[in-house]
């Protein structure tokens, strides 16, 4: 599809445009890495959008008060703490993840509002701080957000595919009872996946804050569903047990290129939503159909 589109508009595959799309995908890509872990363990995390809002506003607020380094540390801590709270509720309290993270979503959005008092904070001199490197810097012409996304993607793909922990995550998602009989503490595994998700979302918050240098209190709202759409497009299952970091990132990049191509062709921005629906359904349909070897259920 991408190739067909580029026949009409060769600019789509120009290096600049590819890097632009990747850079726009980076924030949701970093979040998708964590969400993939949660989905692999058979759970879901809807709180990441609000957590992204909270982390971004905290980062921007504290940058002015404490300085960049301290702000980054606090922001990452918030992500980990929120991940621990959600992980405790879903892993140890054994609550339904959809509803528990929906509750966390509401709480975190409220906290973001309380922290800022509803006013969008901004960083006074975006060019005068080394903090700009995370969102606006380049390493050999590659945007730093993309480097962070790919770097974290590689590390966590290794964790998921090559470590005992990664195999345990897939085991818990594939069959929780069986995993318990194999002496896996599924509660701890689930807890850990949510901590990863929270931590990576706070990294995404740092990147987003550095790119925008300001933060509306609801900046992350809707990110959770956009991320999930890309992850499902990549073929990670909602049922747990199957999926992969690379696939999730590819799914998000495809959605990114789709948006980009439609804009290049001059379609209104909402045309991407209709196309997104069709692509998600077509991709998941193809996957379930090939698994059960028939087109209809």
């Amino acid at each position, binding site marked *: 599809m991408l190739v067909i589109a580029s026949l009409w508009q060769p600019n789509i595959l120009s290096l600049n445009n590819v890097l632009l799309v990747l850079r726009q995908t980076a924030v949701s890509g970093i979040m998708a890495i964590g969400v993939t872990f949660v989905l692999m363990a058979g759970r879901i995390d809807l709180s990441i959008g609000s957590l992204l809002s909270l982390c971004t506003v905290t980062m921007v607020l504290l940058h002015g008060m404490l300085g960049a380094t301290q702000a980054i540390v606090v922001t990452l801590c918030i992500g980990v703490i929120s991940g621990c709270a959600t992980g405790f*509720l879903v892993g140890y309290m054994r609550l339904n993840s959809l509803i*528990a993270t929906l509750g966390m979503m509401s709480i975190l959005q409220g906290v973001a509002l309380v922290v800022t008092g509803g006013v969008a904070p901004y960083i006074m001199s975006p060019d005068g701080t080394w903090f700009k490197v995370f969102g606006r810097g380049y390493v050999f012409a590659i945007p730093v957000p993309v480097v962070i996304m790919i770097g974290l993607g590689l590390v966590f793909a290794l964790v998921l595919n090559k470590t005992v922990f990664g195999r345990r995550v897939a085991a818990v998602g594939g069959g929780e009872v069986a995993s318990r009989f194999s002496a896996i503490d599924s509660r701890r595994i689930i807890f850990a996946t949510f901590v990863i998700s929270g931590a990576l979302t706070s990294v995404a918050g740092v990147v987003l804050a550095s790119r925008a240098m300001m933060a509306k209190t609801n900046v992350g709202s809707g990110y959770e569903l956009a991320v999930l759409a890309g992850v499902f497009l990549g073929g990670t299952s*909602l049922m747990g047990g199957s999926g992969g970091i690379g696939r999730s990132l590819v799914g998000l990049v495809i959605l990114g290129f789709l948006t980009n191509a439609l804009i290049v062709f001059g379609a*209104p921005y909402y045309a991407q*939503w209709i196309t997104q629906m069709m692509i998600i359904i077509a991709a998941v349909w193809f996957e379930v159909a090939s698994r059960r070897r028939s087109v209809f259920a």
Partner: protein
Amino acid sequence: MSADVKPAADASRFRFLPHMDSASGHLIWAITVALFFLFVAIAPGFLNFLNINSILSEIALFGFLAVALTPVIVSGNIDISVGSVLGMAACLSIVLMPYGIGVAISAALGAGLLAGFMNGVLVEKVGIDSFIVTLATMIGIRGVTFYYIGDRSVMTLDPVFLAIGNSNVGFVPVRTIVLAIIAVLVAWVMHSTSHGRYTFAIGGNRAAAVDAGVRVSRHVIANMMICGLLAAVGGVAMAAQLGSVTPAFGAQYELWGITAVVLGGTRLRGGTGSILGSLGAVATLAILHNGMVLLQVQSFYVPIVIGFALILALVLDRQPTGIVKGGE
């Protein structure tokens, strides 16, 4: 409904059937009443006609979605596209008003029914999980609405339409009365028809329902269609009150709807729940919101309180044996 005696007898083999009287459905009403009297005591101006009217009006806003979602969730599925369907119906009813109020409203409701049918077919006939299907249609239906309307707000001055949305009987808004009638109707369908009983059976144990000869897909699709229709009714009702909407209207309303349904004692894994409980939760949220505003609590704290309430409800509702299904 004597014609339904036979299917009822068949369905009574399922263990999960008579859960309508679950304690949680009544508990939420107890909380509603308690909150009501609490705010009567401590919030100045809570107990006057104008304020009660505004509470009832807020109940109508999310009540339609909660009633719409309950049958779907009881049958073990979920529909997160309701916010988009609500927005689409609201826009359609206003944009088509030049063709007459009857055409406009029926087109809006028809579109909701169609959206529900599409969701149902994709879930049952294509076999994609309902969360993924409705996540996709949530995005797509929003796109279709924008595509049809454009990125602008639309308004109508139709006097009949606005009168329906803004008039009161006594201190009760007409929209709330419509909601009450629909809720009674849906509750009757859920409690007293074979479709309702099969819905509980499917949510309780789908494989057993299939084995017992229940034609599962048509009941699931029917519930999805009811859900789309009622979300559209909610959209039309809001359009009639406001007279003007944007194509982004209704975004994230699905989260409020699901919150209410869960607070009302319906379990997401299916098989239990009641319309009465869902409505009680909507009333609780509306009273809580209204009372907090009257007490001049900063509006920022409202989502925090509601989030904690949701998690607390889950903790209280936790089943001690849930190793296998506890998480889902």
